[in-house]
Each structure stands twice: as structure tokens, then as C-alpha cells.
């Protein structure tokens, strides 16, 4: 059984349909990437899984349980966590408070502390800035904080929306290394990216989304070799 299975999902913004019946699945321990151009429906998919949008039709199964109609907080409690596009950290809150918000649904103080230690191991720089307001961090630090905040929820599945957006190349490398590291610790990852090259280099499998439908799917290596994908997303090469 897949840990996350999307079946025939239709989503609209008012009268405009953004997703036309997409289906895909993520297996436990995988990194799966959803690649596509701007406006293909990648973020819509993630927002729907997290319960911020209601689908017109279709099902979302998580660990065999239907979660399509659950509220956002119930989904977070099931440790299906999203790192949203554009980081969306809480600028007026301190770094520490941002991390505490990540652990909002958890009551086990000792384990939260353990998560905190883990996060500091991954991002030592955050530890130096605990009392600083989130908004005063640099772009790269903010992205790290966004990931760290999501990890504070002790995710089983992490949905990541464009983690490389707006970052300098060296930071992009760094963030993808972290993604692999998190995955090695047993966290399943669904990665949405425009930077298809980087995404396919870390993912096990991938799906190509175009104007609200899945056009292609396969192992990352296969997709990276596919001429259509190379032309559209990997700069011709």
C-alpha cells in the first residue's frame, strides 16, 4: 500500500479548473518529484493534499485512510507536513517561536526537544539566531527555517513546494543535500520543483504535470533521458 495515493483529482478556483483528474502515488521512503511549468497545477496539488483547497472530485488516500475532507489541522496531526512555496515563515515571530509553531500539534515535550536537536544538527546556523525575528533572516536562512519548522512536526511525509525558488545556486545545492539527508532519516518526500534538473537528480521517481494533467511518469533517470522532458524542462541539452 502506498503511503500517499491521489486518485482522479479535480480542483477548481471558482469557475477555473486547475486540475483535470490527476492520479499518482508515493511509496514510503521515496523521494517523488512533480515537475512542470509555472501554472501547471503543482502548488494546487500540494495545497489540496494539505487541506487548504477542497477538490471537486477525487480521493486522497494517506496510509490507506481517506483524508480528502479532513481539516488542515487533522492532516498535520497525521504528520503529513508541507513546506509551502515562498517559505512563508512568520516574520514577526522569533526563529525559536517559528520552530515552536512547527511543533504546534505535538504535546510530547521531550520528543519536541529531540526534534529541535535534530533540526539544529541539520541547520546549525539557526541555533545562533534563535531570538532573532524570522523576518530579519537572509533568504537562504529563511528557507532553512521553513524546512526546519516543518521538521518540527516530525513528518512522515514532507510536501515541499519549490524549495529552491529565489536562492543562489550554492544555496540550492545545500538545500537539496538537506532534502536527501532528511529522506535518509526515513521521511518520505513529495517534491514540487521548476528546477527539474536538480529535482530529478535527488528523486527516485517523477511525474510531469502540464496544464492540470499528468503527461509523463517514470523513474527519475528515465525522465531525465526523455527527449520531451529534456527539451521542455532541462534546457534542450
Amino acid at each position: 500500500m502506498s503511503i500517499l495515493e491521489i486518485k482522479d483529482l479535480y480542483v477548481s478556483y471558482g469557475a477555473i479548473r486547475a486540475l483535470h483528474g490527476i492520479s499518482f502515488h508515493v511509496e514510503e521512503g521515496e523521494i517523488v518529484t512533480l515537475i512542470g511549468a509555472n501554472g501547471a497545477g503543482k502548488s494546487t496539488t500540494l495545497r489540496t493534499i494539505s487541506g487548504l483547497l477542497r477538490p471537486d472530485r477525487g480521493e486522497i488516500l494517506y496510509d490507506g485512510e481517506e483524508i480528502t475532507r479532513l481539516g488542515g489541522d487533522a492532516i498535520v496531526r497525521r504528520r503529513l507536513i508541507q513546506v509551502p512555496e515562498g517559505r512563508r515563515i512568520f516574520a514577526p515571530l522569533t526563529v525559536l517561536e517559528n520552530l515552536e509553531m512547527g511543533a504546534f500539534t505535538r504535546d510530547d515535550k521531550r520528543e519536541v526537544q529531540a526534534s529541535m536537536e535534530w533540526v539544529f544538527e541539520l541547520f546549525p546556523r539557526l541555533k545562533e539566531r534563535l531570538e532573532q525575528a524570522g523576518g530579519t533572516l537572509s533568504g537562504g536562512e529563511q528557507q532553512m527555517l521553513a524546512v526546519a519548522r516543518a521538521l518540527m512536526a516530525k513528518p512522515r511525509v514532507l510536501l515541499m513546494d519549490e524549495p529552491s525558488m529565489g536562492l543562489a545556486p550554492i544555496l540550492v545545492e545545500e538545500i537539496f543535500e538537506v532534502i536527501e539527508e532528511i529522506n535518509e532519516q526515513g521521511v518520505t518526500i513529495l517534491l514540487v520543483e521548476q528546477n527539474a534538473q536538480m529535482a530529478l537528480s535527488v528523486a527516485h521517481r517523477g511525474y510531469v504535470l502540464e496544464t492540470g494533467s499528468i503527461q509523463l511518469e517514470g523513474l527519475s533517470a528515465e525522465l531525465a533521458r526523455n527527449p520531451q522532458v529534456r527539451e521542455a524542462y532541462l534546457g534542450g541539452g
Partner: protein
Amino acid sequence: MGKSARELARAARVDIALDRRDGVVLNRLAQGLFALLGLGVMYVLAQAFAESPAIFVQQMLNGLQLGFIYALIALGYTMIYGIVKLINFAHGDVFMVGAFTSFYVISGLDLHRWPAWLWAGLPEGVVILIGTITVILLSMVVSAFLAMAMERFAYRPLRNKPRIAALITAIGVSFFLEYFGALPFVYSNNYITYTRPFEVTVYTAGSISPWAIGGAWGLFLLSLAGYLLLKWRSRQGDLRAQSWIRHPLLQLGLLLGGFFSVVLTLAGVQIETGGEIWDLSASNVTLVIMGSSIILQVILQYVVNRTKLGKAMRAAAYDKDAARLMGINVDRVIAATFALGGGLAGAGGVLYATAFKQVHHLMGIIPGLKAFVAAVVGGIGSIPGALVGSLIMGQTEVLAAGFISTPMRDAIAFSLLIVVLLVWPQGIFGEPPGEKV
């Protein structure tokens, strides 16, 4: 989607910057005019001070009492605006309901004396203390539930509709509460004399002045010591100290303490040398009002900055979707914000009724409006701003009435809004536009 919105916001900010450049001349002119006006006012006040420092200090004390009541109402406006961007025009009526709740439990049930029912031999002071606290808490609970009900049934259904819909609804809710209250079987539309939970004692002249001077210096020196300590710690690289040093309560302590210690000492010297008598008086009502308001503000600071709920409120105020992704039930947090704001307004209502000894179904309108102006002056959405704005409002009103013109007091108080918004368009503690996406 998100990206384009941000780009728009950035573009808008550039536009605002350009507009500002165009408006510089006009602004300078307006600022100059208001600076002149300000100088004139300063002159009048300085003259009043020189003439009779004791009266001046007394007027400032009157203003403080008023300011601390406004603060309790203004906090609700600002917190609710912060989280749902709604100016809850019915907030003043929640304040009215708080006052009436206390009126009924005091004159109907004698609730302010309940400990005496259980323990006959209890000293009077203890009975009244516990009883009064009970009455305030009960009124806060009733007001909190009212505010929550208002949010649930009137505002939540309109959450995703254009903002004007909720605003109009707020005005409707306000009228509903006012005129529902006016029905004969509710409170009727009479002015009703309020029974205070405790007797009034007036403290006069010499007994309070050394205390007032000492208190002001104490506050100032304590804040100064705290400031210097934190400054030193942050020089040492203590990051916690660096953030604490900007804490609004500390700044407030410095500001208020500094201001009052200088004014009071000057007044004291003037009075001693001039042979005038200290004619300062305050009643226990004033002290109870200021004390309760300060205690509630401190509790609120704690709730907002240190508890999980408070942090969730600040997170949701900044970014609701991101808060949802953290598993925060935003609807529940909004309801809690209304409850908190409503509770504070209810406490304000009890204190206001205690101060002025009268309840009436329209009593919330004017204090509500003034507290709203205070919240805007302080920077709507900012909690320390609401307190500072309210204290400024109280002083402006009383000093205007005392030394400029009594019938003009409200006109002067409300023009303060215009002046402050010209100088600080976002209010004193407000955030610049565009910082929130």
C-alpha cells in the same frame, strides 16, 4: 499565484514611494503648520503648568485613569484587526454588556459580597476584594462569550467575502446590541445608577504626593536599570538581551517613568518654593482602575508572547494559510482572539461603570470610538501601540478639557488622529506597508 501577488505588492510599494516624493512639499507644509500648532499648545500647557503645577498634575492623573480604560477597549480593536483585518464596530457594545453584567450581578445578586455568604466572620476588606475580582471575571467571561458568538454567527460566514460586507455587518451588530438592550425587558433605555462593588475613599493632598513622586522615580529608575543591564548584556553578545531591549513594556516604563518623574518633581519644587499647597487627590476608584488595567495588560503580554495560543495568534495574524499548514486551527484561534478582546472590553466596561457610576445602553459608543482612534494612533494591529495610543488619548482629552476648551475636548482628541496619521501614516507602533504579504 503567490508570486504575482507579491510582485503587485512590490509595485504598489514603489508607487507609494513615488507618491510620497510628489507629496513632499504638501507634507512639509502640513507638518510645519502642525508644528506651529503644537508649539502653541505646548505654550498654553507650559503656562498652565507654571500657574499651578498641582492642578496640572491632577489633570494628568485624571487623564491616566481615562487612558487606562481606553487601553482595555483599544486592545480588542487592535487584536481583532490584527487577525481578521476587521474593525469590529460592535466592540464598544461588548464593553457596554460587560458593564451591565456587573451591574446586574451586583445590584441583583449581591455577588460582590459572596464570600460573606460562606464565611460570616471574614473581614470586610477581604470580602470586597474577592467579590470585586469575581464580578470583574464574570463580566469578562460573559463579554468573551458574546464576542465569540458575534464572530461565529455574524463574521465567520463572511470571512471570504469582500471586507466591506463584514464591516457593514459589524455596524449592524452594533446597532442590534444597542437597541436590543434598550428594550424594556432587557435594560430599558434609561440612565441607570450603578452600584459600585466597593465604597469610595478619597485620598488627598500630602498623603499621596510623595508616593506619586516616589512611584514615578521608581518606575523610571527600574526601567533605566533594566535598560542599562540589557544594553550591557547585549554588548556581551547576549542575543536574548538584544531582543528584550526593544520590548515595548521597557520603553513604556522609561517613557512614562521619565516623563512623570520630571513633571512631578518640577511640580513639587515649584509648590514648595511657591508656598502653594499640594492639592492632589485620588480616589480608590482611580487606583483600582489603573491597577486592574495594568494587571490585565501584563497578563495579556504574557498570553500573547509566551503561551502557545498567543504565538498561534501572532502567527495566524501574519499568515493564515501558513498557520493552517502548521496544524493551527485558524478558526479556533480567531474565536479565541475575539474572546480575549471581548473579555478585556468587558473588564473595561466594569471599570468604566465603576468610575462614572452610571450604565446606559448607548454608553459604549463614545468610549468605543475613542478607543478605536487610540488604537489607530498607536498603530492598529500593534498591542503596545494600543496602550500607548490610549494613554496619549486620555491625556489629550483631559488636558484639552482642562486648559484649552471643554466643549472642544472631543474635537481636539479626534484631530489628534489626523496629526498622528500625517506624521506616522501607520500609527506610532504600526508596521510599514508591504511588510505583510
